[in-house]
């Protein structure tokens, strides 16, 4: 049922690099190509690589279905909460209420070729991180449901 030793060693070596690349794409979403969806898909690929290389029993002990479900819910709530909080600041829905307020993400992105300053952009990095968490949870849940249904003993959720 489980893969060979070569596949396991390759997955062990490759997984941290794929994770770091995914987080890089999510965090740099407002500056460079990519964003929440693409970065979340890349992070989910790292988790999926672990699930393919190891069997279901070894993976499901450390990564339960509830963790992924909760991360999906957390991402969606963070997204819509960020959008709704603009109403309390007197702006429109999805208004950029973080801009020019505090130390975090307060300055706008430079026009033209940007210098790569991460601490810019207002709510856009927050929305990117929220979408990244949501996509990571959804795609991991998809693969975990498929992996659990392999032996026919998956609880029908």
């Amino acid at each position, binding site marked *: *049922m489980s893969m060979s030793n070569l596949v396991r060693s390759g997955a062990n070596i490759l997984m941290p690099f794929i994770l770091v690349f995914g987080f890089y*794409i999510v965090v740099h979403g407002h500056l460079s*190509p*990519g*964003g929440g*969806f*693409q970065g979340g*898909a*890349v992070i*989910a*690929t790292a988790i*999926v*690589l672990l*699930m*393919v290389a190891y069997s279901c029993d070894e993976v499901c002990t450390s990564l339960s279905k509830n963790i992924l479900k909760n991360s999906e819910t957390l991402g969606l709530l963070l997204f819509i909460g960020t959008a709704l909080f603009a109403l309390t600041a007197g702006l429109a829905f999805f208004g950029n209420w973080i801009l020019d307020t505090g130390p975090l993400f307060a300055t706008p992105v430079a026009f033209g070729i940007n210098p790569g300053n991460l601490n810019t952009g207002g709510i856009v990095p927050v929305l990117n991180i929220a979408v990244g968490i949501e996509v990571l949870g959804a*795609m991991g849940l998809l*693969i975990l449901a*498929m*992996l659990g*249904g*392999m*032996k026919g003993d998956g609880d029908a959720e």
Partner: protein
Amino acid sequence: MIELAIHILLVTGLVISACMVWYMDDLISAAIAFGAFSFLLSLEFLVLQAPDVAIAEAGIGAGLTTAIFVIAIRGTDKKGGDASD
């Protein structure tokens, strides 16, 4: 000129890998050939100056879809289609 050469190389590789998906008897080999097809397609998107689509294609096409195929092949029987149903 060099861009045209890269285009011709990538499209030739796409056709060859798509034919390999059809040609392979082993299902795992066919799934890996499909992953190579998606990887070449994402390189073609990158050459056509769509890096956003290229990252999405590399993450979902070459990563997640190949993993779903491998999990499905591992979970099923190879000779399952030979029965009357």
